[in-house]
């Protein structure tokens, strides 16, 4: 009680670092910081191991050659790269128009009615459906009914089901951010609903929609479970489309799964290389998406 302040107020408002309450605070701050650190350890552990194991495999033959037969070394994962691109392109071609048009209804025409509430609910539920269930669905609907065999189409269909909720949700949000004035301006000069949506609102929301689509594509490229019994796998080059779309096709993620569990070193090394490519894809898209989402039209 030697300085002036406490005398005037009677009690000290200063925090005493040694008091039990302060120690309690410090204790939990340390615990929370530890939680943060422990949470990030696996991320860095995965990134570092994938980088160490994968980067040493990166060479030209990885991108130009077929995987080696068991027991032999040399070779690449070129067929799986092509297969992933084909399958994901198919999925994108199905999911993007579907999802964007559905989101246009939700945000532009529904006015938040009962239908929109149910569709948003269905989108949420669909996004919680396990990825393997999407694969089983594609198998039950397309493969076991004989519509298409184990093929890129069946795999792309399963991936599209998984991409759909992400695309609907991001497009819905992107459209809602577009200011109402823009629509009024379009209506004011006599535009139809479809003209307003297609020529004014959608173009304004394109950057955010693209961000969502890219993230969905990156996610789909890494999906494995729905592909192991729809696209199956193939050790050979995919045939030229359209025939190639109807045959079993190799994909990167299934290659990682298949080659991780075999006892051959060269295959395991290719699995690490495949993982590195998948992780780089996710890293690059996430960083770009962050950067792109800051660019705004309005």
């Amino acid at each position, binding site marked *: 009680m030697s300085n002036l302040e406490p005398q005037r107020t009677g009690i000290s408002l200063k*925090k005493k670092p040694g008091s039990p309450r302060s120690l*309690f605070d410090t204790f*939990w701050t340390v*615990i*929370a*910081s*530890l*939680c*943060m650190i422990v*949470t*990030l350890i*696996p*991320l860095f552990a*995965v990134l570092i191991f*994938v980088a160490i194991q994968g980067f040493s495999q990166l060479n030209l033959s990885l991108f130009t050659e077929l995987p080696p037969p068991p027991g032999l070394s040399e070779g690449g994962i070129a067929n799986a790269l092509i297969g992933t691109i084909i399958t994901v392109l198919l999925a994108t071609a199905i999911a993007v*128009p*579907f*999802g964007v048009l*559905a989101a*246009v*209804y939700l945000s532009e025409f*529904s006015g938040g009615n009962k*239908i929109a509430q149910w*569709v948003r609910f*269905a*989108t*949420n*539920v*669909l996004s*919680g*459906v*396990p990825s*393997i269930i*999407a*694969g*089983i*669905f594609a198998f*039950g609907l397309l493969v*076991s009914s004989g519509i298409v065999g184990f093929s890129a189409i069946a795999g792309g269909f399963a991936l599209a*089901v998984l991409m759909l909720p992400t695309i609907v949700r991001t497009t819905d949000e992107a459209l809602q951010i577009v200011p109402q004035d823009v629509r009024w301006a379009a209506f004011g*000069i*006599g535009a*139809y609903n*479809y003209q307003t949506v297609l020529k004014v609102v959608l173009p304004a929301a394109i950057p955010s929609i693209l961000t969502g689509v890219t993230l969905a594509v990156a996610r789909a*490229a*890494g999906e*494995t*479970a729905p592909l192991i019994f729809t696209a*199956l796998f193939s050790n050979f080059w995919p045939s030229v489309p359209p025939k190639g779309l109807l045959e079993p096709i190799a994909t990167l993620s299934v290659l*990682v*799964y298949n080659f*991780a*569990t075999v006892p051959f070193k060269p295959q395991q090394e290719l699995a*690490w290389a495949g*993982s590195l490519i*998948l*992780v780089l894809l*996710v*890293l690059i898209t*996430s960083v770009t998406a962050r950067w792109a989402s800051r660019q705004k039209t309005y």
Partner: protein
Amino acid sequence: MTAQLSNRQTGVGIRSESEKTFNKGFIGLTLAFALGIGLILFSIGAVITWRAWPAIQTFGFGFLVNSTWNPVQGRESYGALPIIYGTLVSSLISLVIAIPLGVGTALFLSEDFIPLKFRTPLVFLVELLAAIPSVVYGLWGIFVLIPFIQPFALWLHETLGWIPFFSTPPSGGPGMFPAGIVLSIMILPIITAISRDSLACLPPDLRQASLGLGATRWETIFRVLIPAAISGIVGGIMLALGRAMGETMAVTMIIGNVNRISISILEPANTISSLLANQFAEASGMQVAALMYAALVLMILTLVVNIVADYIVSQVKAKY
């Protein structure tokens, strides 16, 4: 005459019938696609039930409590008890690990322990944890995690072996324990993100009022913020549970795929999704129907959990 005059004034032509129809058609088209999402959800359930029907008729609800899985022709018998058990237990293990870590991380990221410019990249890094493909976690689990936790598993068995969960010596290979750990890594970002959101959308008045009364930061967190955000946190945990139950690749690669119920988590086990991943491509006849039945069980489990979670999370937004 007046119409033509106004046309000339505004520059807008008379709206033609065909354009009006086209406009209506466009709105109808978007509605059709919106309803299509509901249709997809419905047909997922319908197709799986349809394909599972032979197994549902043959095994009935006994499928859920029977524990043999024998696809050998002539001696076929299917029961899902071990895989349902494995699904639930591996998810529970992951929750036990992920809840304290996830909520702790969420608190760290929602309060001002460190400046915002350091917090933003940390939030991004935690999100990144969710974006890494499951199969990559599986590969990492086989070659890095399993050897790494072996001494720890051994220690658990030697010191806590009297607890049934650690009663068998670890094999040094795949099992329920490493699978639970990998699952916890995969669901951590969900718990963190949703807990952080529900903490962040609390009105600042709550915090200010508590601090104004002389509470310390952590007294505020424990007595005001966590109780206020608890439904959001619980909703996040439920969503994470739904994700954990449906997670396939990483679990398939490191759980061991043994269709047996063992109380010890150091033993190999199996989950619904890993059984599907392992057997589906080569299955035929009744085995396909039985796998479809198992898929239906998994879908119902995750649907219930997700819908409850969705409901809890939506209640939070209404509160403040």
